[in-house]
Every structure is written in C-alpha cells, then in structure tokens.
C-alpha cells in the first residue's frame, strides 16, 4: 500500500473541510480524487503531505506514518501543486534544476533528469524563458516538470490542467499515464470528470469533504440505477407517442423538453434499436438521435442530487 488515509478530519475554524475521509492507494494505481470546487481535494493533498495540521486521523505513506520531518518519505514524492510555485527570478531550466536539486545532489545525474523532464513536458524551446514570459499553459507544464523531474515513486498532481488548452491537456494526461507505466503511483485530483475517467484506474468522489463513492470507473457507474440515455431531437412528437414509448420494455423515464426527447433506460439494457424501430414505424421526423452511457457526472448527480460541475 503506497498511501493510506484513515479517518481524516480537518477543520478551518467553522468550515469542516474534511469529514472522516478514509481511503488507500495501491502501488501502480492512477488514483483520481474527484470533486467540485471547494470539496476538499487540495486540503486532503496538503494533509497527506503534512503541510497542514489536521484535527484527527492517520496517514501512512510507503507503510510509514507521514510526518513533517519524514524526509525519507518526502524524497520519494513528487508534487505538482494547484497553485503554480516557480521562481520568477529563475529561468525555466533553472527552476526545474532548483527543485530537482532539492532531491538529487549529484550534478551530472541531475542534468540528465532535468533534460528528461524538459523533454517530457515539451518545454524544449523555452528553457531560457523566465516564468513571466511563459503562457498559462506553458507555465503549468513547467510546474509539472518541477514536480516530477526527480523521478519519484509517488506523484501527486493537484489539478495540473487548469487553464490548459485541450491539446496540451491531452499531452499532459498521456504523460501522466507514461509516468505510471514507468512505475510511479499517481494521485490525480480534478473536477473534470472526463479527465478522471480517461486516466484513472480508481476514483474517489468527494463532496464537502465527505466520501461520496469510490471504485473503478465501471464500478462507480454500476452503482447507479441509470443505464443508457437516448436523446432524440424532434419537433413533432405527440403525447400519445410519448406514452407509447414509456411502455417499451426496459425504459424507465421519458422526458420531452425543448424539442428534445430524452429516454432513459435501466441498468444493463440496450434500447437504441427498439427506439429507432418505434420512430421509424411512427414516421416521426427527427434531427439528430444519439445515445450516451452514464458519466461520472450522472453518478455524482444521482448520489448528491446536484451536478458535479457548476
């Protein structure tokens, strides 16, 4: 077990930021911490890193209790903070070298590692740039490079893709998977469910500092009663036809709003064909028709009654 968190409670005066949070992360996992803004993701990460005092709970990393002076543990952790932490007085290269140097004393080894990190995040052209001259996305990449250059066993990334364009984001996500392939255990926090769905092998959803659900992507989706969702865009559907659709087997709800017919089916059923047959038979004119599988947002929605993203 790489990380084990037990019964973590953290209060900021009257705000309960973490409410008896427990979870554990195995070696080689890409662990996703998913939750809306202010749900306590950063707080949880800071507690794990002993940057914050917490009110209750225990934290072990690599099987040892984590404390502010547990330098042997810290040596093997790479951290990419949510707030960009780089020195404006140092160039991109110098920044990576500085942070890498906090972990790796040997100069030659460090040089190699720094260059690898630059390669990894694709900052090759910008090594001599000062942070102020870098765009938001490039700055994020620099922030990542500073965190991972020393090849740590455990990498914690706190929303590393905020304000990054989709292309760079994909590159970052691929990179994270690559790091994982090279043997690192990853903790990844985000409020973008698609990112988490895309890369995480296991996911913990939290809200208001409390665990909502945990499991693999499929396990989470299996938790909810919802199955496939079919949307038909059409102007001309009668009440009669709607009640007829409702009677089709496996369909749990039908909604007609804003010229869109939304048909939800129960878990494990596949109704697209039945619906298509019906539409054809009734000769309904339609614009588009598509089917979606439930997302983590639906999971969040079903459990908390609200959308994951505002």
């Amino acid at each position, binding site marked *: 077990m790489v990380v084990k968190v037990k019964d973590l409670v953290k209060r900021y005066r009257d705000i309960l930021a973490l409410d008896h949070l427990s979870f554990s992360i195995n070696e080689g996992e890409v662990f996703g911490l998913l939750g809306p803004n202010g749900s306590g993701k950063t707080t949880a990460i800071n507690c794990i890193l002993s940057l914050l005092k917490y009110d209750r709970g225990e934290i072990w990393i690599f099987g040892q209790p984590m404390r502010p002076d547990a*330098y*042997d543990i810290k040596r093997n952790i790479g951290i990419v903070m949510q*707030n960009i932490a780089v*020195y404006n*007085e140092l160039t991109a290269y110098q920044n990576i070298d500085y942070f890498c140097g*906090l972990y790796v004393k040997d100069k030659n080894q460090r040089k190699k590692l720094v260059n690898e990190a630059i390669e990894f995040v694709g900052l090759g052209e910008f090594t001599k740039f000062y942070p102020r001259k870098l765009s938001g996305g490039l700055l994020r990449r620099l922030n990542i490079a500073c965190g991972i250059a020393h090849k740590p066993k455990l990498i914690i990334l706190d929303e590393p893709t905020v304000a990054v364009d989709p292309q760079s984001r994909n590159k970052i996500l691929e990179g994270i998977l690559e790091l994982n392939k090279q043997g690192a255990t990853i903790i990844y926090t985000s409020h973008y469910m698609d990112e988490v769905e895309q890369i995480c092998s296991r996911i913990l959803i939290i809200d208001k500092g409390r665990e909502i659900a945990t499991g693999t992507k499929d396990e989470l989706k299996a938790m909810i009663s919802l199955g496939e969702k079919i949307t038909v865009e059409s102007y001309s559907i009668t009440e009669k036809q709607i009640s007829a659709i409702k009677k089709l087997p496996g369909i749990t709800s039908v909604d007609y709003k804003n010229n869109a017919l939304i048909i939800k089916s129960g878990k494990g059923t596949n109704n697209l064909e039945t619906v298509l047959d019906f539409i054809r038979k009734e000769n309904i004119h339609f614009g588009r028709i598509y089917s979606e599988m439930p997302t983590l947002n639906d999971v969040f929605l079903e459990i908390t009654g609200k959308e994951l993203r505002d």
Partner: protein
Amino acid sequence: MQVFKLCIKVINKNKYLLLVYVVIFLVISFTLSLTAVREMETSTSFKPAKTEIALINEENTPLINGFRAELAKVATFVDIPDETEALQDALYFRQVSCIIRIPQGFTEKFMNGENVQLGKISIPNSIRNVYIDLCIDKYFNTARLYVQNMNGITQQELVQYLKKDLYDTTSVEMIAKGEKTSVTNLNYFFNLFAYPMLSIIILGMSTLMLIFNDKDLKMRNSCSPISSTNISMQFVLGNLTFTFVSWLIMVLSCLLLNFKSIFDFNTVFLVISSFVFAFCCSGISFLIGNLVKSKDAITAVNNVVTLGMCFISGVFVPQEAIGSSVLKIASFMPTYWYVKANNTIAKLTRFTLDTVKPVLYDFLIIIAFGLAFFSVSLAIRKKYRSYT
C-alpha cells in the same frame, strides 16, 4: 545548498538595480561630505561681519579720531541726523544696531583720568553689538592703562601706542585636547553611509524575503526532503552574504574616494563601526521582510524607517544640532549609536583601551540591537510557521 544558491541568483538578477542605488548614494554622500567639510573650514576661519552703527560725535580730538578708526574695523557708519525721532527710527527699523554718542568734554575728562562714559543705545539682545562692545572696551581700557601709568602723555602719543597695540590681532588656533580634524571628512562620510547602507540592505533583503515567504513556494519547498531549519539557515547565510558584499562594495568605494586617510587608525575603526552597523541593518531588514508582505509596502516602510532613523539620529545633521529630547528618542535606534561611535572615533588621537572603550560600548549596543532584531523576527517566523 540549493536555497543559498537561489539567494545568490536572485540577488545577481537584481544586481544592477542595487548597484544603481549604491552609485547614486555614493555620489550624493561624497558631494555632501565635501560641502560639509568646506562649510566647516569657513566656519573656523571666520571674519566678523561689519555692523551698521551711528556715531554721534560732539568732539573732534585725536583720541576720538583714533577710536573712530578702530571702530571702523568692525562697523560701518551710517549718517543719521542727531534728532531723537530720527535716531529712534533708525534703531527701530534696524538701520543701525546701535548708536554711540561721544559727549562734549569726554576727551578732556578721560585724559585727566576721570570717570567718563560714552552714551550707547542699542537694539536689545543683538549679538552683533558684542563686537562693538568689545572694540569699545579694548580701546578705552588700553587707553586708560596708558593714561594712568604714563603721566603727561599727550593724545597724539597715546593714539600712536594704541594703534600699535591694537594692530596685532592675535591669531587663535583652536586645538582641543585629543582632537584632530583631518578625519572629519571621512567621519561625515561614514555617518552619511548609514542611509544608503540601510536602504540597500533592506531593499535587497526584502527582495529575498518576498520570495522566501511566498506561501506557495514555501509549501512547495516544505514538500522536499530538506528540513525547514536547513532551508532557513541557508537563507540566512544568503542574506548575510548579501549584506557583507554590499558593505564591502560601499566601504571600498568609500575608501577609494578618501584614499588619503586609509591607513589611519581612525579609518580602521570607522570601517569596523560600519561593519557592525551593517550587521544591525541586516537584522532590521530581516524584521521588515518578515512583517511586511508586499513589494510596494516594503518600499514605503523602507523609506519611512531609513529616513526617519537617519534624520533624528544625526546622520544628516550633526547630533549637537539636534534637540536633546529628539536625541533621547533617537537613542532607541541603532543609527544614533552608530553616529555617536563614529564621532567619538573621529576625535581620537590615541588608541588605548581607555580611549577606545566608549566606542566599544557603542559597538556592543549596536550588536545588541542587531541581535534583538534577529530574535524578534525569528520569533515572528515561528509564530506564523505552522498554518492552521
């Protein structure tokens, strides 16, 4: 030594800004110290300014003519009609600062050894009349001596003697015991030095502090396997290196500009004094850097603190010219003790334990100030280290 190297790099990045400060300050200080010395020179070899007076002469004798000639050395005569109102007006409007009247029969009575008096009306409390009074006293007292001791001396003879006697103005050389004036220039320079020293060290240190105290960077550094004590120590080392280097640059340029007196003992002590003071500056800047969180605020605080301290402690004006109550307040500031030590050093001609002792005490006080500043800042750091 990553953090230490970082400090050096940051300072290096800002070196031109800091150097510009050094150069500007040095030029200003140098000019100021030069003019100050010139002023000192002129004020020691002074010439009495002539005073406007009115002499109402009711006699015309050789004695009185001699007196008039003597008086002309310190006064210019203004013609005023001998009418009460005109004379009063002249005094009132400060046209003259005194009116001397030589009454009828004065010479005769004087030559007979009788007690006679000049009439004299003057503006009350006028310092300028001191010269006139001195001149009158000197002339007539000397004359009386001759009259009393040389029977039958004629007026002409008397005037001859007087002329000769009063011509020799004694040249007065003021050599106070144990004092010497050749270092005054350097003394003043080193006093002024407190201002750029404080400013630059506060500026440089706070540039470092701002980076060092940045919350995100602090947290990021705390994640590393380097203990916070280690990081702090490296940082303090970086700070002290910076202080030392800026002190060195300033002292060297200062000595180069005053190279004549480099090998004086006084100079050596002044250099030590500035070093001790630099340490104290370091403490002050550490405190400011810990208390103040934004760059703009630091500039403001820097100006207020340095200018304030320097003004009331006698960095710009001599301590003697500052009110005693102000000096009392100033004695709560290290600049006061620095200036005091420098002034004492400048006056030293012999360097024995006894003569140097007061200087050493001042040094100790300055060091104590520095230590106090450091401890207060460290206490503050400790208090805010563990965030909630």
